[in-house]
């Protein structure tokens, strides 16, 4: 067990190493960053001076080693635009993103699990067909467009919900959260629903497919013969077994949601790290882009690791080796 964990940790470090290599070298093709730092009327001499002080006159591979060395010390450079350490910029905005992703995850689960179970239990009913058709529809929707529609109906036409920003926040553990105030909660609704929709649809379809497979097995017939109520049969006997593959998938989906949060945050002007990324891409603020990618990659690798470990707890048939 411990050896397995250790090996996995080393694998994670290796993956992050490769990611840092790719991110560094690809980003180094994107033009001369010195021109982003110096004032527009700088002389050639000043440009050379700035280049030297940033260490950009050295060969690329030396720059890479400096980059990695600083990375291990938590230093990812300073933003060209904000003139602040980028690690601070990204981590400051992380709670906003996590909050939105968390709400979206919750919403997706609350709808997808019961709907998926129902669609599996009564595959031919009208409602099930509607659920399945709706979910296929949900997969086909461009999420940014859904956000725009929601804004148009709920914010512009009806004026029911706010369309941008986080609203009021309250501190918890020194971090501002929106879900602790009524105003903040109202601001959370539209972005979270927009973000959840795609995942909800895919999750629902997966749960239904898994449930249908499980319901065909002998132990379900046995439980039914034994007189287990159909609700208990579905939710406690069958669902438990059906959820095992869903867990892996769900981990990937959480990663996907963090990625798609860039889109949702841009639409709803949600001050999270995704919006920071998009703004930085448009402003060619390279250190922020690199920092975002490294931090988010670390999060993805971490999620994958946790999922693998959780897997062994819920499915005793899998043996860690």
């Amino acid at each position, binding site marked *: 067990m411990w050896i397995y964990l250790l090996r996995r940790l080393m694998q994670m470090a290796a*993956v992050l190493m*490769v990611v840092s290599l790719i*991110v560094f070298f*690809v*980003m180094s*093709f*994107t033009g001369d960053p010195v021109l982003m730092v110096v004032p527009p009327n700088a002389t050639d001499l000043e440009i050379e001076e700035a280049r030297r002080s940033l260490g950009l006159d050295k060969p690329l591979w030396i720059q890479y080693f400096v980059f990695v060395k600083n990375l291990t010390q938590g230093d990812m450079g300073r933003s060209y635009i904000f003139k602040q350490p980028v690690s601070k910029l990204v981590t400051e905005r992380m709670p906003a993103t996590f909050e939105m992703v968390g709400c979206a995850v919750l919403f997706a689960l609350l709808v997808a699990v019961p709907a998926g179970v129902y669609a599996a239990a009564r595959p031919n009913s009208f409602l099930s067909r509607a659920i399945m*058709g709706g979910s*296929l*529809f949900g*997969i*086909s*929707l*461009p*999420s*940014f*467009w859904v956000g*725009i*529609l929601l*804004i*148009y109906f709920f914010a*512009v036409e009806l004026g029911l919900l706010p369309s941008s920003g986080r609203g009021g926040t309250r501190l918890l553990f020194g971090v501002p959260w929106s879900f602790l105030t009524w105003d903040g909660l109202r601001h959370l609704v539209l972005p979270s629903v927009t973000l959840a929709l795609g995942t909800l649809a895919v999750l629902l379809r997966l749960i239904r497919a898994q449930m249908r497979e499980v319901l065909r097995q002998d132990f379900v017939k046995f439980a039914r013969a034994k007189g287990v109520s159909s609700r208990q049969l579905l939710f406690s006997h069958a669902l438990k077994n059906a959820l095992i593959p869903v867990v892996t998938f769900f981990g*990937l989906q959480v*990663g*996907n949601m*963090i*990625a*798609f949060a*860039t*889109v949702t945050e*841009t*639409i709803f002007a949600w001050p999270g790290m995704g919006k920071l*990324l*998009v703004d930085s*891409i*448009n402003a060619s603020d390279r250190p922020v*882009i690199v920092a975002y*990618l490294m931090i*988010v*990659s670390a999060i*993805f*690798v971490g999620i*994958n690791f946790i999922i693998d470990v959780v897997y062994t707890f819920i499915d005793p048939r899998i043996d860690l080796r």
Partner: protein
Amino acid sequence: MKALNEFLRSEFFFHFRREKIAVAGSVIVVFFILTALFGPLLVPQNPYNLQSLELKNAYKPPAWLEGGEAAFLLGSDEQGRDMLSGIVYGTRISLFLGVGVMAASCLVGTLVGLYAGYAGGRADTLLMRIVDVQLSFPAMLVALFIMSAFGRGLEKLFIALTLVGWVQYARTVRGAVLAERGKEYIDASRLIGLSPFLVVTRHVLPNVTTSLIVIATIHVGNVILTEATLSYLGVGVPVTEPSLGLLVKNGYDVLFSGIWWISVLPGCFIMILVFGINLLGDFLRDELNPKLK
């Protein structure tokens, strides 16, 4: 002609006709393909030709609303560009990119998968590691990263989306090769002296074509959605060649003043197109999956 007759009498076509949903999906898809191919001949404007635009025609609502004109059936945008023309040209870009990226990804992924599965050993381990790592990162984010490094452009978008897309084909094909490799008919074809290339392409590949068709269908829809999203974020197609996603983005700025058609209508077209593709893909998956029969 004989092949067509055979197809019309096949079990596949029989099931297809009975599934109204699949027929609906293919009607949608065929409609969009025809639009992409011939639509530019029928629409009133070439939206790329800036000289034909007149600012006095800006922000015309769709024809069925008050103040709308028949000349601008679906309204016009801030430069006086006819939305219908913009959508038809945008559909063209979105669909061609979707199909092109699918074809390229399928080719690259299949070759890699065949090689990895058949050669085995170190090459296989290395290639599959790459696939695993890439699959653990969301495709959208990888594409966003590539596009942010290289900048806007159709050909860059094509390369970025292909770099993201080939992995799923590689994994599927490799799995199939591994499943078939130990079988007797493969040994037999090797014994009669066929080269490894012929063995895998002629004898192994036919076993995966059905799964490839399903993946490829859904992939086209996904590429269209990803492209639209990237263009919406401002890192996709260039401003001079608006795809459907970029049209939605252009309309977003004026949404709050009640001018909804510029972003809502192109989005509708994306949705219907991708929905049609997914309907078809769903049918194909059920139909071509031997386990469900």
